[in-house]
């Protein structure tokens, strides 16, 4: 089997909850709990789930902005979990991030040109910085007049293009996109999705794409993992996950997305998911999803299901999901 490009192995991230004058630790939030995922080089991998499911924390752990409490992250054959300082620098040159709100992730007092040139300076870019800035803006569909524009002089879509150009300036292999299109207008969202797709092919990029809009994640990503309360509930190829979801939570998420066709929407039988995501401070016993699960059994209330391989590229953490016999795979 091909060596994974990014391998997240049994990663947990726990945050202490401190209280009182002495800041004694009184509890911990298990934001990410024993997550194992692999990304192949050149693929777009989607992480979906509701707020508090740990998708952003996991992404920040990959970016080395948050430290993993347990587990390891391997990137292109190297364990990067505990690297610091100069040892981490080569990794930082190969990984970049695009965030949700370009207005708050771009310095309002710097022009687009200066924002991108800054990264090139820090990275000690050897060539002509100005030419490179214009080239990067061009790749992202912005003309050279944007070099002198400030973020407030641009529309949301243009700002996100600058954000992407900045990410590309380190010539990364992996880009972590955290809700990169969520804040944009519908027509602009489509432009940025198309740009991300085009760049992936052109520059052989690998994406870890965090999103909550399932239709966008399905469209953009080759494989998807569904997270709930810090755990991976199900992971499969996009086709498989959306056509043949095995976890009741995945089914509920897909079911909750309304379709723009009014007649098919009127004909569709839709059963909502009741209840809300429990606090990660006090996760339910057994399967964390059982209080909201329409098919919960006794076993689900006591035993936590582990992520089990169902078919070659489809795993689910659910007692009700059974692996196919080998000869049917």
């Amino acid at each position, binding site marked *: 089997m091909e060596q994974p490009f990014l391998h997240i192995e049994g990663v947990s991230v726990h945050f202490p909850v401190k209280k009182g004058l002495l800041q004694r630790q009184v509890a911990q939030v298990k934001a990410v709990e024993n997550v194992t995922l692999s990304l192949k080089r050149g693929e777009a991998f989607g992480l979906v789930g509701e707020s508090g499911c740990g998708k952003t924390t996991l992404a920040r752990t990959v970016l080395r902005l948050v430290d993993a409490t347990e587990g390891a992250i391997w990137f292109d054959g190297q364990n990067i979990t505990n690297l610091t300082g100069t040892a981490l620098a080569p990794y930082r040159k190969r990984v970049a991030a695009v965030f949700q709100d370009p207005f708050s992730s771009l310095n309002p007092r710097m022009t687009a040109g200066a924002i991108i040139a800054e990264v090139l300076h820090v990275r000690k870019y050897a060539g002509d910085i100005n030419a490179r800035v214009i080239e990067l803006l061009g790749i992202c569909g912005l003309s050279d007049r944007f070099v002198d524009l400030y973020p407030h002089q641009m529309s949301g879509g243009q700002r996100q293009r600058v954000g992407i150009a900045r990410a590309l300036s380190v010539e990364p292999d992996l880009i972590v996109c955290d809700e990169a299109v969520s804040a944009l*207008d519908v027509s602009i969202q489509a432009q940025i*999705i198309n740009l991300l797709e085009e760049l992936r092919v052109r520059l052989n990029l690998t994406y870890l794409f965090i999103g909550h809009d399932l239709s966008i994640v399905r469209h953009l990503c080759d494989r998807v993992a569904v997270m709930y309360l810090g755990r991976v509930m199900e992971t499969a190829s996009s086709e498989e996950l959306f056509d043949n979801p095995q976890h009741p939570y995945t089914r509920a998420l897909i079911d909750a997305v309304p*379709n723009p066709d009014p007649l098919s929407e009127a004909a569709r039988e839709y059963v909502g998911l009741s209840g*809300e995501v429990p606090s990660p401070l006090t996760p339910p016993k057994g399967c964390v999803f059982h209080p909201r699960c329409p098919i919960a059994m006794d076993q689900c209330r006591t035993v936590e299901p582990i992520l089990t391989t169902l078919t070659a590229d489809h795993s689910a953490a659910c007692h009700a999901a059974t692996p196919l016999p080998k000869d049917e795979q």
Partner: protein
Amino acid sequence: MKLLEIENLSIVHNADGVETTLVDDLSYSVSAGETLAIVGESGSGKSLSSLALMGLLSKELKVTSGSVMLGGVDLLTLSDEDMRHRRGRDISMVFQEPMTSLNPVRNVGSQITESIEENLGMSRAAARMRAIDLLREVGVADAEQRMRQYPHHFSGGMRQRVMIAIALAAEPKLIVADEPTTALDVTIQAQILDLMAKVCSDHGTALILITHNLGIVARYAARVNVMYGGRIVETGTAADLYYRPRHHYTQGLLNSVPRLDQSRDEPLRPIMGNPADPFTSIDGCRFHPRCPNAQDKCRSQRPQFDGQTACHFPIAAETLVAS
């Protein structure tokens, strides 16, 4: 019977003597009990026009023409004091972010009872009973205990339920919901919209649902206004707009969204360019710089709204059926 009739509403922004028209000659109506969706991108004027009918425009914004008739009264002619009495009683509003619309330092119960006492003239005890009933109706469990809690004790979805309870408190004839679920998770979004649809149908309340999500339009709205650049560019039933869009902008929006019921490989066909900046003047049709079908006439003459669409060269119904 028409409950709300907006005619020729224009809203102008005035900064240091420079006037910019943000909502241009807007006319539409809402029947009693119906759900009308307003769709549009940032700067389309969809939120502003609704704030205007609530009498909530900020100081630098002025209504320069038009009328907003609700139950035979032009809301635009009312004094601030009279308008204050109408809000809640005749029209109420649910905003996107319930945390910023609830008072963080007062318990939830007092915020609901206040609205009931004020609008229905009930005693405190009776108002409290009604508030508890309302909370139960919008699906807040342990309503009596929850009355004593503060907004930060509630999750985003629960806060939005509280906002709906407050909006319903005085049995208004119309609720305006401005992106009520945009800040919520998908499963909660479905819960809240189903709840809104249910309470509006139970109480016979009309609903103006402002959204950017075409799926929400399809599931919850009977009629839709599509707004662009401060004007309505197309109106129709949800099915008409989906199956037979006339305006190129409506068509462009439909082509821009990835869908779960289509092949993954179906390419997105975004609308080119950026949403019209309200502060930049555009001659002719405001959509022409982004329109795939723009002609000379579109660049010079503003198209008139013909009751269905505002386009010089609307998409012919036949060509669409064929495609």
